[in-house]
């Protein structure tokens, strides 16, 4: 197989990056790919649904305790062999999460051999690109392409647009837009248009379905708990598209007026 996909998923906080990332990871593992997921959120729950709801020690937890971190301390096998890593971070309101990502990524780069053996590595990066720390995986050369997750609502689109601006700034191509539906009116149309106008395209439209929530609450991915569901099909298709995709563009962010017009 021997693919070397290194992707990051960006998008407004709470838009569903973690469930998308873990379901894509699971779908790729189903297809036999070697997959790793690296959660960069201080909440450290990117991989929780791949581990049957269990939390794993994070890189920064160990670093805080002064442990000389080894690969086996922080890389854990989850659903179908998906390797799970959580960066971790400080409690809300203290310290510096951005710096945390930088330190953790540097550590991981140093200690992890399997980083090179993966067919797909997904970085699940929190929220918006707000400081240097959030683009550390890219800047440290670990990410080759980015996906942006959004819904058809104004704020997530605003964030998505901003992220595109950030990506262009750090010279990282955008491979596509993914819509995680919030069931707002004309959603697919709006996001399709947005994607086209920034020079990209809509990769998938993930419908809003209760089953995703239910599986998550139980601590599982949809791929594991409800593989026959409609939404599992969507994830499977998205996973395939990601693995096969070889085109990307430097996104051109829209100005504020145009963005607002689009969502009217």
């Amino acid at each position: 197989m021997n693919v070397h996909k290194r992707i990051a998923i960006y998008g407004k906080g709470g838009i569903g990056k973690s469930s998308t990332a873990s379901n894509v990871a699971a779908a790729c593992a189903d297809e036999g790919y070697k997959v790793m997921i690296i959660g960069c959120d201080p909440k450290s729950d990117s991989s929780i649904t791949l581990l049957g709801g269990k939390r794993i020690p994070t890189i920064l937890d160990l670093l805080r305790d002064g442990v000389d971190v080894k690969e086996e301390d922080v890389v854990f096998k989850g659903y179908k062999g998906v390797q799970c890593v959580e960066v971790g971070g400080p409690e809300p309101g203290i310290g510096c999460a951005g710096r945390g990502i930088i330190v953790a990524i540097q550590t991981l780069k140093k200690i992890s051999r399997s980083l090179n053996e993966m067919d797909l590595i997904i970085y699940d990066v929190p929220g918006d690109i707000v400081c240097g720390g959030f683009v550390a995986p890219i800047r440290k050369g670990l990410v080759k392409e980015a996906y942006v997750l959004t819904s058809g609502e104004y704020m997530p689109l605003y964030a998505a647009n901003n992220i595109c601006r950030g990506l262009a700034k750090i010279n990282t191509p955008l491979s596509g837009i993914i819509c995680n539906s919030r069931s707002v009116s004309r959603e697919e149309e709006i996001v399709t248009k947005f994607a086209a106008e920034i020079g990209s395209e809509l990769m998938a439209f993930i419908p809003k379905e209760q089953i995703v929530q239910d599986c998550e609450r139980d601590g599982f991915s949809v791929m594991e708990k409800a593989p026959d569901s409609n939404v599992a099909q969507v994830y499977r298709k998205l996973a395939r598209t990601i693995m096969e995709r070889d085109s990307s563009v430097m996104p051109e962010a829209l100005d504020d007026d145009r963005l607002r017009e689009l969502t009217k």
Partner: protein
Amino acid sequence: MDNKNISIIHPRPSSIVAALYTLRDLNVDVAILHGPPGCSFKHARLLEEDGIHVVTTALDESGFVFGGHDALVNILHKVNDMFHPKLIGVVGTCASMIIGEEMREPVMEANLDVPVIEVEVHAGYRNNTKGVLFALESALDAGIIDREEFSRQQHLLEEATNVELRHGAASKEYLAPSRGDVKYKVAQRIIELLKEGKRGITIMNAKKETGYMFADITLAVNEVAEKLGKADNIINMSNTDVGLGLPRVRHHAECIMKDFEEKGLNVHEIIGGLDEYPVAGATIDKLIEEKYSDYDFAVISGVPHAIPMDHLAGMEIISVTNGPRQVLPLKELGHEHVLVEIDLHPKTLGVNHIVESEFGATLREVAKESL
């Protein structure tokens, strides 16, 4: 002033260090640097020579990510047990300030029965006097100084910044360091002037503890004049008012005046306190205009660039500074001879007597030869 917007590209003393020195002048027993172990290392060590304990919370990578709250609480307890201080200072650094550390909380949590002055400062200020100001503001809040002293200090700081912008190290984008003129030759010149019967003024306009060495230049000039039988040709001015300034600064003035007295040196004009070097210029200018305008030469030590040239212009000026970057601006001001006392600072910390200066020593030696 149009040179206000120049960007100075040579490294400058930082606001963190300025805050540390201010805490020292407020007589703290311990200063805690909240940040990386290497921050301000050189000055921290120097200040230890000056009799205060400087310690660090030694934040590392993990501290930068998770914050240093606990580290600060711990060290507050530790220094309290170890040194039994009467007054403690806590100083922020770039690292702790950038990650948004709160210093009040840990101080409250440590709950010591010793007053603590916290200074939230990093090194990213254009004027390093900001560090002094922040320290003074905290001292005011903590009731260590009164409003009147605070306003006085604030005014001095503004003037100090102006002095640096006008003719000091902040006056140009880049100033190459220089050792100044050869001390031996300038010593010869002073002796020559005295032998010719010329009349001179010594002006010590020094900054705080640096006065311990600059005062030696006043002493040396007077000693040599006396040997040549010209003692009466010299008028001495110094900014050693014992009643002005933060506690430690007043103490320095007392020590220097005591030494002057012991050596039989007469200070004719007290031109301000040891922290008033940025504003003493006006007093000096007025004194010269009124009483000494027909003098032939002036030996100025300390912060010579703070003195206006209006009534000095007719005199031959010998100035002694400790700033290697001060040579060029002084020459441009019209000072004929500019000398630099290298390493002055380390030698004047932790002392309470006048310290021999290189130029003073040279002058004494050359005088011996030429008698």
